[in-house]
């Protein structure tokens, strides 16, 4: 038994040892002007960080942006997932899947850079606007750019997670609803939508997780004006190499982000229990 598990236990030991050191160091202090740390052990970092208006604003802002993006991904992703699950045309299905998976596997740096080019002052969008005599739009180096690019980044996660659940809802249920006199929209809202809730919550959970920890997109497309929690941590390391403070912010942020995540998880568990029997 144990011989099957010792490799993974070793990896987990490294991972959690790293976090153990990390937590321990959040109680120390940087020796000014160096990258070294020293005691005494205290909760002072936590007091300072929790009292910092800047940190509070960034934490709240990060959660708020994540909510907006999760909502946008839901509105855009649900129809796509629905079509993907229900289309009779294998070719349409294959094409959309292909697009999603290629986008998904092409990675973050590719897409962040692509949106930088697309949304930039000299990018195709603003050039076209100018050619037609309109003033250019400020799409880059602000929240708009971060939102657009992040929504694009998370849609494959969202759709690929939700699609399976919708596919597993028997077509016959929707047909039964229509046979009983419901219009297409009613059949959807009273049968398909509720039954897809477990998958929908899973997809939103994943989207939120990915967004809340986003770092590269605000870094490249925010132009320093959009600070998310990850960027704050990065700046603390980059500018002052203050490990104890970075550790404190990291741990607090991890705790803050776990609150909505656990709420989502509990919701999904509840839904899973309720719809467990009909899902497959």
């Amino acid at each position, binding site marked *: 038994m144990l011989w*099957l598990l010792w490799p*993974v236990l070793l*990896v*987990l030991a*490294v*991972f*959690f*040892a*790293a*976090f153990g*050191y*990390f937590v321990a160091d959040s109680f120390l202090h940087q020796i000014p002007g160096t*990258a070294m740390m020293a005691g005494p052990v205290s909760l002072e970092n936590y007091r300072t960080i929790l009292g910092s208006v800047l940190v509070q604003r960034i934490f709240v802002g990060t959660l708020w942006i994540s909510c907006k993006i999760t909502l946008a991904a839901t509105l855009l992703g649900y*129809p796509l997932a*629905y079509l*993907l699950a229900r*289309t009779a045309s294998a070719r349409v299905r*294959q*094409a*959309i*899947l292909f*697009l999603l*998976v*290629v*986008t*998904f*596997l*092409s*990675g973050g*740096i590719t*897409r962040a*850079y*692509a*949106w930088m*080019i697309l949304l930039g002052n000299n990018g*195709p969008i603003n050039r076209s606007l100018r050619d037609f005599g309109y003033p250019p739009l400020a799409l880059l180096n602000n929240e708009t750019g971060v939102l657009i690019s992040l929504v*694009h980044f998370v*849609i*494959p996660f969202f759709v*690929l997670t939700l699609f*399976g659940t919708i596919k597993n809802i028997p077509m016959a249920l929707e047909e039964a609803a229509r046979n009983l006199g419901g*219009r*297409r929209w009613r059949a959807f809202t009273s049968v398909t939508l509720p039954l897809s809730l477990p998958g929908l919550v*899973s997809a939103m959970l994943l989207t939120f997780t990915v967004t809340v*920890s986003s770092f*590269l997109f605000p*870094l490249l497309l925010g132009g320093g004006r959009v600070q998310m*929690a*990850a960027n704050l*941590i*990065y700046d603390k*390391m980059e500018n002052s190499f203050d*490990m104890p403070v*970075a550790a404190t912010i*990291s*741990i607090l*942020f*991890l705790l803050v*982000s*776990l609150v909505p995540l656990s709420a989502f998880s509990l919701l999904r568990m509840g839904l899973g229990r309720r719809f467990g029997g009909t899902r497959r």
Partner: protein
Amino acid sequence: MNSRRGRPVNSRPYALAVPAMAAIISAFLALPVVVIVYYAFSPSGLMVFPPKALTLHWFVNFFASGRFRGALINSLLIAALVTPASLGIAVPTAIALVRRDFAGRGALNALILSPLIIPGVVSGVAFLNFFTWTGVTSGFWRIAIAMMCFTLPFAVRALVATLHGLDGALEEAGRNLGARPWQAFLAITLPQLYPGLLAGGIFVFVEAIDNFSIAVFLTDLRTTTLPVEAYGYIRDFDDPTIAALATILIAQSLILVFILQRFVGMDRFLDLRR
């Protein structure tokens, strides 16, 4: 518009709304990919349409640059190291999780998957701190070890899903026909794990190549990776060299999708993601 009341149940507007939206969203998905590939071949740093000429200049620039060549080699080496290691650890883990019953199985599963919900930057700083304490100064090994921890959940997930789909009686049938436990594993279970190995391997490989938020903390003066180097380049220069890199990564993604379609099938692959 005045014949609304007589509309049949299976009305055109409804029937068309979803596909129309899907088409628009698909276009939104494809847009950056198309634009960046086009940009990579455009002669000036400006996007002009229709193109006056196409050029491979930015690809040449990419491969000629010493910083990118080193980063490319590092990224590939790390991915080539992490992918088999991750799968090699994930196979026995998945077998224990699916086929054995032991106390704390659910908890172990949750622990293994936990790196997925920890923001990359947090893991990155934590690893940097850990490696500073333990004296691991080589950027290569720091990134490789961190990637190992971070990609393992992808591999375990894919293999657990594959194993769940396998009939446990198959291995018993092998034992009944005279195979020792390891023979039954090698001859019967392992060959059927290949969809999980391939899908899990692709996730791990792509993540190991593409990861930025952890790797950016762990590089050293001699060792960087492609995304970290690309970020540095974007900060300093404004030309399509990174578009050439992006195009290469898109090509890689196309190849991987082709492999998946050929050997696993797209539907199967998607089932293995969860």
